[in-house]
Structures are given as structure tokens and as C-alpha cells.
């Protein structure tokens, strides 16, 4: 079993044009920074990206928008960047907006081997258009399909050489779900340790879901909204 890769460029080398990718993170928190940088360097294009957000102009998925590598975004909240808006309005970029809980649950379904889930989110709205509705105990639910993604790029705090992952604080968000959902899951971690050095009780994502792992470098961890109170 050899899951450890030297760097992001090697780990993502076989991501092909037209691939469907999941990218973990909420806003810029917990995004696979090294993986995104490597995708930009690789020049791979026509990507469908499943990610809660689309980054900002000059960071996160925004970097891949600048280089026009993204064909379609599937997200719950976008538009924190001008280039995104420009491409959307000009028709260069296709966007599918779905409720955040639906996004999370469609990842979860894939990771749990379930073809679909039922959720009330979006009933009576344009999100329901074309979807099967089922009524349980008098309440309507939409049938939402599990995602089918070729690759998942996730970011964890610590990982071991077996691919077991531990996340930190709210940088967890979609990462463990996407790790479970990808056909090939590529995890980048701030600290890579030998198998056996993590406490099995503390591991969030079992390594069975993780196919490739590497230790990332130069994490910028940019803050989108710096809100602080002055020291007294």
C-alpha cells in the first residue's frame, strides 16, 4: 500500500480534462490550497467543480476561474468574486446552485453507498424543478441523488501514511464528506505522520476512503472576513 505522494503535482497528475472534482472547504476555510495551485499549474480544463463556494478573485477556486479551467460549478453560495460574475453573465461558466445541506447530504450519500436521499429543502422552490417528490408522514421531500465525482480534493490538519485524517475546528466542514465521496480521494495535510502515531479514537476520516495523501507546504490560510474586537 503506497498512498504517500511527494507533492500536490504528483498527486493530481492524472486529473484529466472534463473531470468532475469535489473540493473541500467553506469559504476559504479548509480549502485544498496546494491541490488548487497544482491544478492551475497543470492547465487541466473543462472541470466540473462541486464545492460549497467558488473562492475569491485571487484565491481558492477563483484562481482556476481566472485561468478558465472551470466549465461548471455546483455550489450553495457563490459570487464573492468579480471574475466569477463576469463568466456567469457571459455564459462561459455554468452554475448550479443547490441548498447547502443538500450539497453536504449528496456527498454523504455517495460516501455511505446510498444512491439518493430525501430532503425537504427546496420543496416549493425552483430547486424542486424536475425532481421526484415523495410524501412521508404528510410532508413533502425531494429525492436528491448522490454525487458521482471522479476525484475529491480535501484538506486535513493531520494525516498518517495510511490516509487516516484529523481535521481542525471549522476547517472540517465538507472535507470529511467529500473524502468519503470521491472515486479517487486526494488528501493534503499540514502534518503527515507515520501510521500508528494518531490515536484511533480521534481520527475523523478512516484511511479506507483516502487513496493519496501528501504533506502540503506554504499554507496561506487566507481569512475572508477578519472580525476582531480591540484589546482593552
Amino acid at each position, binding site marked *: 500500500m503506497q498512498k504517500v505522494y511527494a507533492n500536490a503535482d504528483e498527486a493530481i497528475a492524472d486529473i484529466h480534462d472534463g473531470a468532475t472534482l469535489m473540493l473541500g472547504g467553506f469559504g*476559504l476555510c479548509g480549502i485544498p490550497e496546494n491541490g488548487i495551485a497544482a491544478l492551475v499549474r497543470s492547465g487541466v480544463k473543462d472541470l466540473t467543480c462541486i464545492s460549497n463556494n467558488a473562492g475569491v478573485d485571487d484565491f481558492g477556486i477563483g484562481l482556476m476561474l481566472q485561468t478558465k479551467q472551470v466549465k461548471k460549478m455546483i455550489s450553495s453560495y457563490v459570487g464573492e468574486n468579480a471574475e466569477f460574475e463576469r463568466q456567469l453573465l457571459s455564459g462561459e461558466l455554468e452554475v448550479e446552485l443547490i441548498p447547502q445541506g443538500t450539497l453536504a447530504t449528496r456527498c454523504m450519500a455517495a460516501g455511505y453507498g446510498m444512491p439518493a436521499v430525501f430532503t425537504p429543502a427546496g420543496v416549493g422552490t425552483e430547486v424542486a424543478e424536475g425532481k421526484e417528490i415523495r410524501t412521508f408522514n404528510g410532508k413533502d421531500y425531494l429525492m436528491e441523488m448522490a454525487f458521482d465525482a471522479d476525484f475529491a480534493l480535501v484538506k486535513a490538519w493531520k494525516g498518517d501514511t495510511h490516509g487516516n485524517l484529523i481535521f481542525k475546528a471549522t476547517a472540517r466542514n465538507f472535507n470529511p464528506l467529500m473524502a468519503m465521496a470521491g472515486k479517487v480521494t486526494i488528501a493534503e495535510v499540514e502534518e503527515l505522520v507515520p501510521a500508528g502515531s494518531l490515536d484511533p479514537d480521534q481520527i475523523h476520516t478512516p484511511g479506507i476512503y483516502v487513496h493519496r495523501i501528501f504533506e502540503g507546504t506554504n499554507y496561506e490560510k487566507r481569512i475572508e472576513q477578519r472580525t476582531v474586537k480591540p484589546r482593552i
Partner: protein
Amino acid sequence: MLTKEQIAQRIAKELKDGMYVNLGIGIPTLVANYIPEGMTITLQSENGLLGMGPFPFEGDEDPDLINAGKQTITTIPGSVFFDSAMSFGMIRAGKVDLTVLGAMEVADNGDIANWKIPGKMVKGMGGAMDLVASAKNIIVAMQHTSRDGASKLLKECTLPITGLQCVTKVVSNLGVFDIEAEGFVLRERAPGISVSEIVEATEGRLVVPDQVPEMQF
């Protein structure tokens, strides 16, 4: 007429000890500033946190610790992190006692529109559709009318719907309204606002009880 701070302050009176509460972006966020002394309220942030605390002191901000508005925050003792599926799982399962969010329009049957204005850049619904589809107790904080004076408390929403028949209470800059079978039931008036002013500003079905007390702060 209530200020945004006063709307938040009035909503805070709906809090009860031990509640788990999700506060949306904007006026709802301000409710956290008015949690009564001695009351234990646990704030849920749908990006994966129960036990959200105030903003950090300058220099203590942690890029790995943000709220659903992507702002740097802190945790309070007893807090817990989880992934986004569990976060919306607890919302869907009705574990969150109270949800407070903003709205562009509310209808007198409890329909809400708050995510999209046709012709303008659409940013997305985020977690709003999940919250309104499942929460049992939804209070909307909003301005009663648009800038040009048009009512936002309507017979039917004109903007794209976020959720159907879900809002239980509205606190606007003019008053407090319960949404019941007969429509908006006026419970309290903002200081200095008359019942007739509220009738004038409300397009949806409005029920005015015999006594409508002025709000007390």
C-alpha cells in the same frame, strides 16, 4: 420605528434558557448581543459548530475558526465541531430550537423569499432553504417596507420562494406579528407607531386584536 439593534433586542426576548439557536447573517447576528444574563444559549453555526462565541481579540483570530458568514469567531467552553452533513442533519431532525433569519418578503401563510432577486446577480441560497424547510420555530427579522414604501408583508411572495409555510413570527421595524391561520396577528407595536400605520404598511391579511401593547425595552 425600531432600529436594527432594537429588532434584535426584541427577538432576544424570545430566547429561553437551554435553547440551541441558529442566527442568520445581518440583523439576526445582532441577537447574540442581547442574550439575557444568566441564560445558557448555544449558538449553532451551520458550517459546523455548536457553541459559537464572540469575535476574537485582535491578533487572536484563527483562519480555521469561522462562522457561516465567514467571519473569524471564538468558541465558548463546551463547544463542539462537526462536519456539514451532521450540521444540517441536526437542523433537518429538528434539534435546533430556534432559527432567526432575514427576509426580503414574507407572506401571510408563512412563505418566505430571501435568496434571489430576478435580474440581479444570484449568490445562492446557502443554508437558508435547509433551515426554513425543517426548523419548527422560525423568526424573521426584517424591514416592514421597501425603501419606496411597498409592503414586504404580503398576501403572496412575488420573489422566488425560499420555503413554504414555515415562518412562525415576524419582528419588523413596526411591530411583532405571529403567523397564524388567519394571517399576520399583530402582537406588539413599535414605540410611537400606531395600529393604523401598521395596517397601512401591511399588504397581507392582518389581524388586529383589541389590545395591541407598545413594545417594552
